[in-house]
């Protein structure tokens, strides 16, 4: 019975099937209406569960795809944020970013939000928390690509812009990041030299 019904549902909508069953019930005596409807509901339930699973799968894939974290340079990570951010995505992005930043011992994390058209106060606050967390790991945070609406929201929620570095575009962000990196390398070399001369 269930197979029959799901076959029907492949071709017509549930409403049409339901109407058809009603018609049959009216025309045929002793039509097993209860059994039919029971099977009907079960089939619908199965379909629903399958769809739910599919949705969860897709959501997982989306989470994977949607949070690429790119190692641009030694100690420099780039996170291009794409699409609309809801709290779920924001949370998984934050967790992933922090793990990567800690593992890579990143000195600079560039977060590009060019792809984000707008955010609400909740997600805005969330992003700020993420930036603060990255700073706790000892990395500088550079944010690029802030659109007017986002700037509006960020100011409204009272962001302390001293905590993060904002650059107009990826180019200036990169320039800054690389200068920090080379500065470090030069300093390390100087220290090494100093160390060597001390030994002599």
């Amino acid at each position, binding site marked *: 019975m269930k197979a029959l019904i799901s076959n029907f549902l492949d071709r017509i909508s549930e409403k049409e099937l339901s109407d058809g069953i009603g018609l049959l019930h009216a025309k045929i005596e002793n039509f097993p209406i209860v059994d039919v409807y029971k099977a009907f509901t079960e089939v619908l339930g199965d379909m629903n569960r399958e769809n739910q699973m599919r949705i969860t799968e897709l959501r997982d894939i989306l989470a994977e795809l949607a949070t690429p974290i790119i190692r641009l340079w030694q100690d420099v990570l780039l996170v291009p944020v794409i699409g609309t951010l809801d*709290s*779920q995505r924001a*949370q*998984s992005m934050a*967790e992933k970013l922090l793990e990567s930043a800690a593992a890579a011992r990143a000195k600079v994390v560039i977060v590009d939000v060019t792809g984000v058209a707008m955010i609400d106060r909740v997600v805005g606050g969330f992003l700020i928390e993420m930036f603060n967390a990255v700073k706790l790991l000892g990395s500088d945070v550079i944010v690029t690509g802030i659109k007017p609406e986002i700037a509006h929201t960020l100011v409204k929620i009272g962001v302390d812009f001293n905590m993060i570095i904002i650059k107009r575009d990826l180019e200036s962000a990169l320039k800054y990041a690389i200068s920090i990196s080379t500065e470090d390398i030069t300093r390390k070399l100087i220290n090494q030299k100093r160390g060597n001369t001390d030994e002599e």
Partner: protein
Amino acid sequence: MIDVNSHDYDIVLKIKDENDIAVSRQMAKSFAQKNNFSLADVTKIAMTVSELARNIYRYAKEGYIYMRKKQGADKAVSIEILACDRGPGIENVELAAVRTTCCLRPTRSIWTNMTKVQA
């Protein structure tokens, strides 16, 4: 005092000295780990319990923390944490019990519902 049946809960912790704070933190951590919460959420749970325990110790000197696993309608696993203490004013037989319900889904962000109950 609110009636709490300790048998309803998976973990019962008594807080009466400073060491108990660290102990409750560890218990919360392993409880969350056992229930397959993500590392980030395990940390959040441990920290929440740590904060609750510290508040109990600091303001009430003594209290209890109860924890249990709950399964929601949508198969979501959550942990309920209940912190009970007698706030200052015990001489007046004024008992304050703070009911804190923290629900954390295994892989999603923390949702906290706080309701204060005064008996």
